[in-house]
């Protein structure tokens, strides 16, 4: 799926954020405490880069997982998948979508795996309005109102990183030719 929603500023953690999480992990994991000095500095920045790659998520996926739980959207998607009915549009007023994910950072020092750092990413999206299209078992975003994104990265109950940004629907070229149907991956996979 092409990215249809993009964040104004990406979620990025820094080496300091990683060190902060590692400090908290040291109290729980003695193995981390022993090599903590080696994990600081540039090593922590390397860990932050790995985390940022994992946090480079498509916000559309997060939002679609929430939209799919709306009964009207779910029904429309089912109908579009089972029948050759024309494309159905669903308008959603203001709503909030909260997505929780686990971020796992695995560290290996000299080919020896350390206890993974497990963080919790919670993304809260406050959507003013959205217009969705159900077609062939997929959800397409037709229109998106103002969206406020609050991303919080936690180690247990300790807030490691908080990021506030907005999201917008990616501009679409009106003259862009849509690829053939068999080349287009499904937008959202959810059980029918």
């Amino acid at each position, binding site marked *: 799926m092409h990215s249809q929603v993009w964040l104004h500023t990406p979620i990025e953690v820094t080496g300091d954020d990683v060190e902060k999480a590692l400090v908290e992990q040291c109290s729980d994991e003695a193995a981390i405490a022993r090599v903590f000095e080696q994990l600081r500095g540039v090593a922590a920045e390397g860990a932050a880069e790995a985390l940022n790659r994992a946090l480079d998520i498509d916000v559309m996926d997060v939002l679609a997982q929430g939209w799919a739980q*709306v009964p009207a959207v779910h029904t429309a998607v089912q109908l579009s998948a089972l029948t050759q009915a024309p494309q159905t549009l669903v308008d*959603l*007023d203001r709503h909030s*979508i*909260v997505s929780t994910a686990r971020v796992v950072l*695995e560290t*290996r020092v000299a080919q020896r795996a350390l206890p993974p750092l497990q963080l919790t990413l919670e993304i809260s999206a406050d959507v003013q309005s959205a217009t969705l299209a159900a077609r062939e078992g997929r959800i397409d975003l037709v229109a998106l109102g103002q969206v406020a994104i609050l991303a919080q990265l936690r180690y247990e109950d300790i807030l490691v990183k908080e990021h506030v940004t907005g999201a917008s629907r990616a501009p679409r070229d009106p003259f862009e030719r849509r690829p053939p149907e068999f080349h287009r991956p499904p937008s959202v996979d959810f059980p029918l």
Partner: protein
Amino acid sequence: MWPRDGPPPACAQLRRVNLVGRGSWPLSAALMLGATAATAQPLPCASVSAEVREYVRQRGACRDAKVAPRPRASTRPVSKVSDVPPSAHKKLPVPNVIGRSSADAAHELAGFPVELVESASARPAGEVLAQEPAPATFIPAGSTVSLQISDGSLFRTASTDPVAAPAAAAAASPPVPSSAPEATPAPMPPEGAVIPPGAGEYLPSGFAGRTTLIFGAGAALGLLLGALSMRQWLLRRRPAIGISAPVPTLPPSWQPADQQSAAQPSRDERRASSTAAGLPGTGLADEIQFAAWLVPIATTILLAPGADKATIRNSSDHYA
């Protein structure tokens, strides 16, 4: 020197004593010979009655017994130089003569029979090494005092050092006022007192040895510095004389950037790896690997009140 027709002045005696104390045995012996040759041969003090012996000795009219000849054995009694009738029962303190010459000790111990015992020592010949009874001990007059003197057999430094002997002689001649009473015995230094060189008749033992040691250390230091300078000069002239020395090479990171090979890691990379590892130069940071991934847990949607009913319409309506 001093007038040949009279007793040697006090300054001459002091000088002689000091020279003996500092180990310049040949020079002091010459002074003693000169003194004895210039004066008439006095009577032995032992032959004078005890009542007038001190007065006669102070006048220089009598002489104490000569020091026994150089011993051949290591430690053996040599001679009795004086004798006091045992009738005297008055107790007198024994002066401290340790470190002095045997002649001076015999002079100091007037009133006590002195027994000299020579022993091999590194001290100058004739220097008193020990005395029995101990100094400041009150003993009856006429008691025998045994002195252990050095035979100088192990003394080499001061007597063979051509520099230390004149220096010692010069330092051993303190100015003595001419108004000093003649033949007044020098005050005995208290036990354990430290008298600086040249301040009086007493000089600490080993002074000449220390001087020689200082000169020797200076000479050795000079030789060492000279050798180092010669080595540097030889190293600079290495190709000419064929001496090879390893030429140190700078680490690659110290060399200019244009001289570093492309295969060498950059300075920033080396610094980064070292800093990350916390162990400079180990490169352990390269062995630290990270992997991160995301695992979705749950997604919930909260619809605002009144918006729980989504509007569903056909696409034709939307485009219309």
